């Protein structure tokens, strides 16, 4: 009866009033409010991330003069170039070794930090975060002065100690190692702080129970610490790998890709090809080269993280 009366009342309602009521109801929904509040950020991401990314994808499929569509031609062309093969090798070496080293040193530092009493921990934590807080371009300039061919501070010390000066940035392998060292110096703090946060979230009772069962330090790490912070490790490594693959500042400032193109990474090579040499489509192809691989990697890592999260919740 009630429903029937309501239907009758609605039928008698003028269409404009009904539309207003529908709008009011829509605006009162939690999801609508959430969407409206997120809208500025969605527009920002759409305008500053999504649109440039899609435009870069479009550019990468054009010919040099940007007058014809060539599909994946630019990517196939790149694969046949010796210098680009060297860029793939160098980028992979740089990113993978730097991330592994950052993860390793970050893990050790986080453990050391975790075992320092809280009062002193704050100072050390602050000091260790300094490399990560200083703008990378600025700190890399500092490193460049240490390695500089004419005024290298390291060579100054080496000469004083009676050793032969080393052309740090003038020979391929020392230059590559210098790049990796600077990146590790810069990024270890990030790993440390993430791991430290994860370590602090591991319940102390688990370690106490393990100690009662007679577990040693290594067993505690293998069976308690690592499984408990596995998700943080995965996400941190994934994030760092993406950022390190896209690194520009360190190589640009230290070697500009030299000697003999041996230290170029995707970003610096893309800049040289696209902006400096006037081949914007090929530059876009270089910069997007790793995108599919990293996307697949990110998908699997994040899927595992979600799965483990659900398992832990159960």
């Amino acid at each position, binding site marked *: 009866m009630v429903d029937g009366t309501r239907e009758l009342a609605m039928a008698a309602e003028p269409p404009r009033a009904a539309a207003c009521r529908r709008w009011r109801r829509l605006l009162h929904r939690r999801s609508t409010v959430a969407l409206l509040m997120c809208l500025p950020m969605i527009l920002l991401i759409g305008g500053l991330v999504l649109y440039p990314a899609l435009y870069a994808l479009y550019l990468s499929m054009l*010919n*040099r*003069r940007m007058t014809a569509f060539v599909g994946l031609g630019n990517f196939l*062309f790149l694969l046949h*170039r*010796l*210098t680009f093969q060297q860029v793939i090798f160098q980028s992979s070496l740089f990113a993978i070794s730097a991330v592994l080293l950052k993860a390793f040193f970050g893990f050790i530092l986080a453990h050391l930090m975790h075992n320092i009493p809280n009062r002193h921990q704050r100072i050390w934590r602050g000091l260790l975060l300094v490399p990560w807080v200083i703008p990378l371009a600025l700190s890399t300039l500092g490193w460049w002065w240490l390695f*500089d*061919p*004419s*005024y290298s501070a390291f060579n100054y010390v080496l000469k004083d100690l009676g050793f032969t000066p080393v*052309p*740090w*940035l*003038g*020979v*391929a392998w020392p*230059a590559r190692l210098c790049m990796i060292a600077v990146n590790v110096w810069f990024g270890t703090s990030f790993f440390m702080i993430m791991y430290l946060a994860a370590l602090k979230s591991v319940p102390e009772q688990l370690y106490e129970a393990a100690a009662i069962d007679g577990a040693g330090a290594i067993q505690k790490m293998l069976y308690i610490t690592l499984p408990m912070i596995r998700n943080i490790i995965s996400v941190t490594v994934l994030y760092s790998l993406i950022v390190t693959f896209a690194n520009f500042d360190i190589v640009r400032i230290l*070697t*500009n*890709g*030299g*000697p*003999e*193109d041996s230290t170029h990474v995707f970003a610096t090579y893309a800049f*040289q*090809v696209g*902006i*400096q*040499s*006037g*081949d*914007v489509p*090929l530059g876009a192809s270089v910069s997007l080269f790793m995108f599919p691989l990293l996307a697949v990697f990110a998908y699997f890592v994040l899927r595992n993280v979600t799965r483990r999260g659900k398992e832990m919740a159960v």
Partner: protein
Amino acid sequence: MRSTTLSRRRALKLGVAATALPLVHIRTAGAAGSVSIVFFDAWVQAGNTAMKKQVAAWSEKNKVEVKADFLSTANNQIVITENAEAQAGAGHDAYSFATWEAPTHLDYLEPMDDVMARLATTIGPPNDMAAYLAKSKGHWMAVPSSSGGQLKGCVGRISILKQAAGLDVMEMFPAAPGASPGVDGWTWEALLKAAEACSKAGKPFGIGLGTTGDSSDSAGCLFASFGAELVNAKGEIAVRSDAVRQALEYAQRLVKFLPPNAVGYDDASNNRALISGQAALIFNPPSAWAVATHDAPAVGADCWHFPPPAGPKGRFVSAVEYFWGVWKFARNKTAAKDLIEYLSQREQVEERCAATMGYDMPPYPSMMDFNVWADETPPKGTLYNYPIRPWHKAEAHISGAPAPPAIGVQMYNRGTMPTMMAKLKSGESIANVVGWAENELEGFLRG
């Protein structure tokens, strides 16, 4: 309701006011519109001041408001902005293009034939390299400019070259008009002997083998003087030629005497090598000397500028050319062209050249006689042979020429020639180096 009808009295008032308007109109600097332009941010700041003064004078005379921005070449700021403007189809009306940037943006530029035709009657034609870069299908697409232009000849330490290598560069290239006594003897073979002697004396020549402009320029003038073209004017790969082989055989001997870190040189490394007293000779415009006069006065007073050595095919001086172009999308093309024409006149160019202590090199042969190069000190006359004098028997050159500019720009910016020399320094054979270059050049031919 208020009436909107126009009464006779009101119409009369409006008519009188409209007639009187031109009589009371105040002519402002922007009366004839406005124009925006990007200038190269001069290394010597006095250059910017002189430019601003000239722009203000033109603005006042023509009643056009000018918005002038000075963008730095540091970190490629000027190049990045220019690419963004080309892609967006919006931005300044006129722009300063570095060497290879004008040919890269030909499709976006307004032809400047009218300006160049008028300039030909007042200041004459520019050098061949300017035409190579800024002329397309018979049309001038940009106007060669002195602002930012430079030549990269030799800067040598007078005392070290004399003591270690027996070269009296002040006597070879005196600061006086007429034939230089040492010009014919100054060959790449002579440079090789001097490089060996100075290297043994612990003061090697600071010639870079990196992938930056200075390295490309010095390698480019070496290759050109042997007639070695990696890609010819038709766009064909010519790396497997006798001339290239001869140039590489010579380079193989030269690189032994260059510093161990020459492969890691950037554009400032050679300057620092000279200023710090480590190098006896570099290839550079007078910027290194200008800094040395302040930071290391003894070194500055011991520097002498002279042309590069000659090879079997002649003497080539690396030229960094700048251009002023007007975008097709510019809103005030007439004013932009007029401003560029005004700034290109001899009087204006000489004033700016003097302000930059002779650093800015005009690309017009008719302007090689400015007094600033004879007057600058210390030592007196050090810059006299910085411009190309007729008796130097030299010509301006750009590393990558005569290949079509779309290919030349890649050879230059990716340092193909210095990398070939760097590979020789690391012990690779000439055959391997040629093979590598061929693969690299094939990639540059992509349409």
